[in-house]
């Protein structure tokens, strides 16, 4: 048991270390700056969505619609390029993400419905919208040179996308650990009723959490579309499990109230380096899916094994309760 607790505490370091060591042994030339830069760029997509999800999970909620918002925002930003120019289109794309998040948040807070079920439904809605707008065909942007510029590496290490991810995650870390609103997010996630009694506007925090997550998914989608100069309604459908896995690897609990931005950084790096290693070995995408699924399940089970003891019955928040609906949305 003690071993499990230790393993669970240092899991990010252990898993990241193991991944790097094994990959370095198996894949020739793995530990080079160019691989790192490529992996970081690849991980940035997962990472940006994971930033939003970290905040939501700490607040005891979840958003499964991230992948669909990712696709929708990207499509909007590409389609509008012809009409209003590239930068305004990108901004509108990010706004689409924010609006999608606001819809999720308003429905979860307003209907008092479990966020898992609700965002499952909105995922279907956003994904259908993406197919609707594009007629299920991929769309292409106007300026391919921009994609090249965005994909350029600076300092032989960072692309714009990965630099943005690193900056945002550091900011998030500061916000979560150093500010009062950040602390309130933890309070809302660990005990909604107590947080409310202490005068924290839980509903508002949950709502803003969804808006934040939607915005970040939108940002990730817009960047992806700009880099590839394409928007496709099927983008991001395989991201959901990978993103949740990354956040959970980082030690953020599905139970709410626990988690950290730096942990998520570690989790994202782990999933990213794992993906790159598997791609170098030309392992098919469906096997990669199996791996991220396995990581997710094993870690969630580990979390349960470690946390079941020591908590009074009935004090587990939103996501793991036996009947989540009555409590889940009810903050």
């Amino acid at each position, binding site marked *: 048991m003690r071993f499990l607790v230790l393993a669970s505490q240092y899991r990010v370091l252990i898993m990241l270390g193991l991944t790097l060591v094994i990959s370095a042994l198996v894949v020739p030339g793995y530990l080079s700056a160019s691989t790192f830069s490529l992996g970081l760029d690849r991980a940035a997509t997962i990472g940006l969505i994971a930033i939003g999800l970290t905040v939501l999970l700490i607040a005891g909620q979840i958003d499964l619609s991230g992948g669909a918002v990712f696709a929708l925002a990207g499509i909007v930003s590409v389609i509008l390029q012809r009409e209003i120019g590239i930068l305004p289109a990108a901004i509108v794309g990010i706004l689409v993400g924010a609006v999608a998040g606001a819809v999720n948040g308003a429905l979860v807070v307003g209907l008092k419905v479990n966020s898992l079920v609700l965002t499952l439904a909105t995922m279907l809605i956003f994904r*259908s919208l993406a197919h609707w707008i594009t007629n299920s065909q991929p769309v292409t942007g106007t300026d391919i040179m921009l994609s090249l510029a965005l994909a350029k590496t600076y300092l032989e290490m960072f692309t714009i996308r990965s630099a943005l991810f690193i900056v945002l995650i550091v900011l998030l870390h500061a916000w979560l650990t150093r500010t009062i609103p950040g602390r309130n997010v933890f309070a809302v996630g660990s005990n909604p009723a107590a947080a409310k009694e202490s005068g924290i506007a839980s509903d508002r925090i949950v709502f803003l959490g969804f808006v934040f997550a939607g915005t970040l998914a939108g940002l990730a989608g817009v960047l992806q579309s700009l880099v590839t100069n394409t928007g496709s309604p099927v983008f991001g459908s395989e991201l959901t499990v990978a993103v949740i896995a990354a956040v959970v690897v980082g030690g953020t609990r599905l139970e709410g109230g626990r988690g950290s931005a730096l942990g998520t950084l570690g989790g994202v790096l782990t999933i990213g380096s794992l993906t790159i290693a598997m791609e170098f070995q030309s392992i098919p995408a469906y096997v990669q899916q199996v791996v991220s699924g396995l990581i997710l399940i094993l870690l*969630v089970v580990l979390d349960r094994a470690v946390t079941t003891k020591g908590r009074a019955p009935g004090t587990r928040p939103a996501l793991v309760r036996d009947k989540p609906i*009555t409590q889940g949305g009810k903050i």
Partner: protein
Amino acid sequence: MTGTTMEISGVNRTDRFTRGSRLVDALSKAGLALAILAVVLYGSFASPAFFTTGNLLNVLTSMSIVGIVVVGMTFVLVAGGLADLSVPATIACGAILSLGLQPMIGPVPAFVLAVALAGLIGLLNGMLVGYAGINPIIATLGVGTIGLGIVQAAVGGVIVYGSNTASAEFAKGRLLGIPVVVLIFLVIALIGHFVLSRSFWGRWTLATGGNYSAAEASAVPVKAVKAGAFVITALASGMSGGLLGLTLQSARPLIGSGYEFSAITAVVVGGVSIIGGFGSVPRAIAGLVFVQLLTNVMVLQGVRTPIQGFVLGILIVGAVGMDAALRKRGVA
């Protein structure tokens, strides 16, 4: 203040059962019947093709394939298991294996083995949800991803074709003018209905979903009941996948994607509570009939597929929101 105390401690809620009020119950039944009637009326006025034998038989056949999954999914929702998202994986498992194994072991053993392996995926879901206490949606999402990946890896990510004409004839055939698939669905629905409403297992399922702690205290094997619901769903969708594969005579790895949403929509639209503890198979099937007819009318009207997904999503949000509003228990 008492309200909030009860809210955080699931153990001490004042109400002992989940029970919709009679009025709500009657209203929702009448509402569903009216909705089905409205769709039928609209369909018959709007499209001359709606009330033809061919069209209705098509609706019935496609309804049956989803319907088998719906019967299982009803158990999951009633037992308080939220939803099973591994359905695409179990359907793919059923379809791919029942076609792919035909040359080696013959059609019937292939079908049985396919359904059994799908059941194994369900067992894994059940262990994670019922015994390890993992959130059902996360668990089934993860297990579904793993299962689908393994099935794809097993066949190398390609399309599998059927090789046994006799089994195809059987699956596509008719008995007394009714498609065999429809008959199989009816039999499964009847069994599901009796198990849920008349057997000890059904009572346990309702009790577990209604009040987990009370059921546990009354010596109901709650963990097994919850796990069982996922096994039932997996067996049902494995069977549904097998039948789908046999009728199409080909199976892609992604053959089952979207079925989880069709099934969940049908069950919640039918008024089965997503909180658990309330619902029946006939209700879920009524929801299924409504959703399928609505989809059919949309297809006949030339509405594009994405809009149908959009409507399904809105229906889920609406039904779940109404459910939460009408059946809020204990807490005001």
